[in-house]
């Protein structure tokens, strides 16, 4: 573990993010003799999927499941590899080629690295529902973080709503921990089954089937599940008091609730990559923007690679494999030798195994359109409190895309920088205009991708040209 002052000026490889992809990449680079730094925004390694693994209140074989504990080996290997592990380090910009701007304890350093591997992973998909900003509404990912790091679970009446593998995983972990859920509202769209079924054979042959079936059976036996949910509202004045929902049958039901856990999948955290002008494209399968990368994670920007869920959602094991592959490419580029052939073979085999079956999951758990494109007063941009209606009215004014929309309505101007509204805004505009999401595009992002104090910016190095450009008296 390393403090800001102990960071070198220059490394061979800088890895951003300490989830499975980042941990694997840093390990492989350092074990191959490269000087490597691993920047982690959190204080402990593991990213989100292995969150809390170094100081979990749970022991292996209880509650969290075997997949989670695999992370412990990854973490140990990375910490033992010789890479510099820098916790509490927020990488806020890639301002110049081969340079990483990183903030630690309120001071920014600009660290040079011949190769940069972005492993910033994924974030929860937006899940815009009426009342979704009420206190008491949190994401399933948030609930997992509370469980993993603090052993905390909601007391009181709790409803879990949405779709996707992580939803079932959380429910199963709660089951193991004896946490009661009043209901699971399953929003899996029945229309998805036929398209997903085409990939059922691959899914059946994948590691996900057995795991998934076991999980879901246990949860279904023990908990109340409402299927075919097509509408959800969070009700309450100052905080959540009830959850209303409607199934396909059309009847509105109401459940008293103190906590609502929402989840409808994850999407790549694209802000740092976009701010570095890395090209992205819309994925019709995963309904999000993904970077254009080759089979080693190389982007169109020289010396920057992306590994893990940030390159497209594929799960923890696939992320680890991609981290290794990005590292292999970096090692070969910097040593000039075709090393690590075995590591590459192993990683590609693993990738093949763990990518098999994803198509089925991607298609089955595509959130239904109504949950991706809200209507009326439902807040689409949480930071600036911009509603779906305002966005649609502004499309009618002739606003063609999210950047003009941002200028007119302020959506995307808050501190989250569009992480929780970008996909919603792009999809709303695309549907209203009848064009593709690729054509509509996404917010134009620039550094800092996380807020930095003005004081910290004033401490960055300047030069004579810069002074002349500003102080012109």
């Amino acid at each position, binding site marked *: 573990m390393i403090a800001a002052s102990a960071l070198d000026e220059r490394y061979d490889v800088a890895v951003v993010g300490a989830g499975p992809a980042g941990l694997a990449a840093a390990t492989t680079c350092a074990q191959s003799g490269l000087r490597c730094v691993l920047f982690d925004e959190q204080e402990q390694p593991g990213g989100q999927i292995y969150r809390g693994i170094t100081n979990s209140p749970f022991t292996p074989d209880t509650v969290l499941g075997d997949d989670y504990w695999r992370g412990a080996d990854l973490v140990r290997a990375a910490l033992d590899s010789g890479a510099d592990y820098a916790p509490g380090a927020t990488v806020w910009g890639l301002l110049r080629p081969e340079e990483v701007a990183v903030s630690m304890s309120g001071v920014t350093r600009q660290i040079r690295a011949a190769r940069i591997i972005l492993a910033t992973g994924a974030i929860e998909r937006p899940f815009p529902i009426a009342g979704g900003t009420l206190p008491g509404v949190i994401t399933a990912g948030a609930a997992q973080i509370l469980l993993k790091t603090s052993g905390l679970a909601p007391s009181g009446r709790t409803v879990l709503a949405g779709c996707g593998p992580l939803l079932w995983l959380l429910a199963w972990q709660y089951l193991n921990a004896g946490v009661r859920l009043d209901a699971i509202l399953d929003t899996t769209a029945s229309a998805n089954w036929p398209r997903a079924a085409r990939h059922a054979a691959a899914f059946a042959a994948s590691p996900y089937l057995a795991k998934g079936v076991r999980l879901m059976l246990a949860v279904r036996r023990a908990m109340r599940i409402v299927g075919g949910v097509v509408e959800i509202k969070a009700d309450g004045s100052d905080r959540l008091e009830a959850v209303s929902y409607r199934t396909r049958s059309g009847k509105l039901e109401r459940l008293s609730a103190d906590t609502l856990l929402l989840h409808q999948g994850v999407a790549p955290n694209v802000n740092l990559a976009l701010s570095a002008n890395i090209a992205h494209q819309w994925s019709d399968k995963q309904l999000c923007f993904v970077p254009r990368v080759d089979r080693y994670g190389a982007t169109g920007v020289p010396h920057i690679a992306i590994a893990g869920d940030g390159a497209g959602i594929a799960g923890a094991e696939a992320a680890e494999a991609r981290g290794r592959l990005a590292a292999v490419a970096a090692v070969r580029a910097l040593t000039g030798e075709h090393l690590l052939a075995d590591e590459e073979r192993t990683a590609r085999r693993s990738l093949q195994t763990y990518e098999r079956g994803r198509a089925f999951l991607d298609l089955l758990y595509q959130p239904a359109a109504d949950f991706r494109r809200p209507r009326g007063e439902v807040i689409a941009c949480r930071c600036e409190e911009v509603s779906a209606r305002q966005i649609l009215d502004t499309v*009618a*004014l*002739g606003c*063609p895309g999210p950047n003009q929309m941002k200028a007119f309505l302020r959506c995307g101007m808050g501190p989250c920088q569009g992480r929780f509204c970008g996909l919603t805004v792009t999809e709303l505009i695309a549907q209203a205009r009848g064009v593709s999401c690729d054509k509509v595009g996404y917010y134009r992002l620039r550094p800092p991708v996380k807020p930095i104090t003005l004081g910290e910016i004033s*401490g960055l190095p300047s030069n004579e*040209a810069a002074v002349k*450009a500003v*102080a012109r008296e």
Partner: protein
Amino acid sequence: MMAAEAAIQAGARNEYDVAVIGGGLVGAAIAWGLARRGRKVAMLDEGDVAYRASRGNFALVWVQSKGAGFTEYALWTRHSAEAWPQLAGALRDDTGLDVCLQQSGGLHLLLSEREVESRANAIKRLHNQPGMVPFDYEMLDRAAVARMLPHVGPDVAGASFCPLDGHVNALRLLRALHVAFQKHGGIYFPERPVERIEPRGGEFRLHSADNAQTIGAQKIVLAAGLGNARLGPMVGLNVPVRPQRGQIMVTERTAPFMPYVVHTVRQTDEGSVMIADSVEEARFDASVGSAVLAVEADRAIKMFPHLAKLNVVRCWAALRVMPKDGYPIYDQSKTCPGAFVATCHSGVTLTGAHALALPPWIDAGVPPGNTFGAFATRRFDVPAIN
């Protein structure tokens, strides 16, 4: 669906009295002004991602120090600033939107005695220009500044103050102009960059890529910012404009602390603080550079020390549309009468003039008196060598 497509589907012919090329602050102000006068107006715009000075500016309505070496510009600026309240009121009437004009005065803060002296001399020279109508201003010492802006830091040595100066919510202004334009029957064409202007029989046909339907107009106004340099020659207009980069930071919202606007630090009506002001000749490179941001941040903190703690949530660089000599260009083509150009780098300050004074000129086709003569393109002509 969008207004333009709906109009065309409803069978409207794609012919207009005036087509304004450019949907930024200059184009939208002129287009609105013309639509209000009952003209049938089309406003053509680029797509979502483009060099848009109108989305990246510092939103000042600024009079002091404008027009050194060009008296007409000083007068034009002042005229526009004085017309601003009328503009804001008309927009509110038309759209219900408040552009939050604040014109209680602006300070140009100075961080050393040398800067104070330099500034005082510059303004004096400006006022001594022949034909200049002096505007109200005052050189303030540190104590006077501190009375007006209680939170200034110890490095602030003085300021020049002008009671006509202020600021506005420039993004809401752009939105209001668009809403008001359409309210008066204007037709907006987004994603319609003009590839080629074809003068034909005293009128104009505007061709875009993608087989989009040609738009015809009896008159056109080039208000396409940096694009004017390429479009101008198509109608016999020489419009020497170049990009000049400026970088801006914006902070999280904070409680109001600035009763007056400062030329490089302004607090928006939402509460966020915007920090500028830099000038770089960077061609078309609109990327952010940390060295310039560092200097801007340093000066802003010297002006208001508490700003150091605020979180900067966004930075951007925008390209000013800078005419060759820095002054606006307004002209009508001699070879293609009916083709006008309007371009400047002070699109916010001059919105008053653009919305209220230019449209009658464009309608009439001739400038009243010689007022606009100084802004014509002939000032760039290289004299013939005999």
